C-alpha cells in the first residue's frame, strides 16, 4: 500500500513516519509538500509528529491553513485513511477534522516518556489487529497534549465509540495518576464519526521496533494494512 507523509514548513518528525513505513512496514511512501493542492494515489495519509511552523500561536494553528489541508479534508471525506500523530493530531483538531482541542499540559512542561494505552475500540481500521485486552506501551512527547472537549461533544464521542485510546497504568487501569497531561477522561486518541481519521498524542512510530524499546505501536500499522488489503478484495 502507499502512504503519504505530509510535510509542513518546520515539520520535524516527518522523517520518523517516512522511515517507519519504508524500513519497518516495507510499504511504499512519499513525502507530500504542504503546497500541494491534490493528493492522489495514496492509501493512507500521515500528518507527522514533532512540530510544524515552530508550533507558534497554537500547535497546528498555522499548519491547518496550508493548501494541502483542503486536499486532506477531501481525501478524508471520501473515506481515505488519515492518521494524525502528535502534532498531526493537533493539526486535525485545528482543522476541524477531529473534535475537541489540545492545549497546554497541566504540568506546564513538555513530557517525553512511555505511556500505557488502553484500547477502547478495537473495531476501527486502526485498531482491528490489536488484541482487545492488550495494553500498548507507546511513548508520548509533547507540551500541548491536554485534550479538551466540551461535555456534549464528549457524550457524542462516547456514544459513537470515537474514543480510541486512553492513558492507563501498565496493567490497563485508567487512573488519574496514569494521565500524563490532564486530558479529559484520560483521552489519548480519538477518531471521527466514520472512523477513518485518527488522531493520537502517543507516537506509535517510535514504538514499532524492539530496538527502540517497544514494538506495540506496530499493531496500529498492521491494522491499517489488513484493513486496506480487505478493502481491496
Amino acid at each position, binding site marked *: 500500500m502507499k502512504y503519504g507523509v505530509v510535510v509542513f514548513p518546520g515539520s520535524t518528525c516527518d522523517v520518523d513516519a517516512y522511515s517507519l513505513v519504508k524500513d519497518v512496514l516495507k510499504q511504499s511512501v512519499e513525502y507530500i509538500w504542504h503546497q500541494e493542492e491534490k493528493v492522489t494515489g495514496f492509501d493512507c495519509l500521515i500528518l507527522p509528529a514533532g512540530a510544524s511552523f515552530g508550533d507558534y500561536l497554537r500547535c497546528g494553528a498555522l499548519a491547518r491553513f496550508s493548501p494541502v489541508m483542503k486536499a486532506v479534508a477531501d481525501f478524508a471525506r471520501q473515506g481515505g485513511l488519515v492518521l494524525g500523530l502528535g502534532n498531526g493530531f493537533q493539526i486535525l483538531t*485545528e482543522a476541524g477534522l477531529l473534535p475537541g*482541542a489540545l*492545549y497546554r499540559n497541566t504540568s*506546564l512542561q513538555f513530557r517525553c516518556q512511555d505511556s500505557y494505552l488502553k484500547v477502547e475500540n478495537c473495531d476501527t481500521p486502526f485498531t482491528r489487529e490489536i488484541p482487545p485486552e492488550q495494553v500498548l506501551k507507546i511513548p508520548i512527547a509533547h507540551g500541548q497534549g491536554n485534550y*479538551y472537549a*466540551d461535555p456534549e461533544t464528549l457524550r457524542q464521542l462516547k456514544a459513537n465509540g470515537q474514543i480510541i485510546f486512553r492513558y492507563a497504568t501498565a496493567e490497563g487501569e485508567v487512573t488519574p495518576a496514569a494521565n500524563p497531561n490532564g486530558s479529559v477522561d484520560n483521552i489519548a486518541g480519538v477518531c471521527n464519526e466514520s472512523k477513518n481519521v485518527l488522531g493520537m498524542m502517543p507516537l506509535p512510530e517510535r514504538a514499532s521496533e524492539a530496538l527502540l524499546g517497544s514494538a506495540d505501536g506496530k499493531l496500529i500499522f498492521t491494522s491499517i494494512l489488513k484493513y486496506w488489503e480487505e478493502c481491496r478484495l
Partner: protein
Amino acid sequence: MLKAEIKVLLKQGVLDPQGQAAEKSLSALGYQNINQVRIGKYLEVTLNEKDRTAAEAQVREMCTRLLTNAVIEDYTFELVEV
C-alpha cells in the same frame, strides 16, 4: 492605521493550569489577597485600514479563523488609532 488589541483567555470551565500555577506562586511570595489569576494571550494586529467598521469585521474574522480557537478560547478586542 488601526491597531487591534486582542485579549484571549481560556473559556470559563476550561482549566487554566498556568493561571493556577501563577496564583500559587503569588501566594507563596506572600500576596494574601489574590482572588484569581488567569493567563492567556495578548495580540496586537496593526492594519492599514481607516474604516473602523471594516476593521472590526476583519479582526473578528481573523480571530475566528486563525488567531483563536473557539473550542477552548474566548476573546475580546479594542481598536485604537495609531
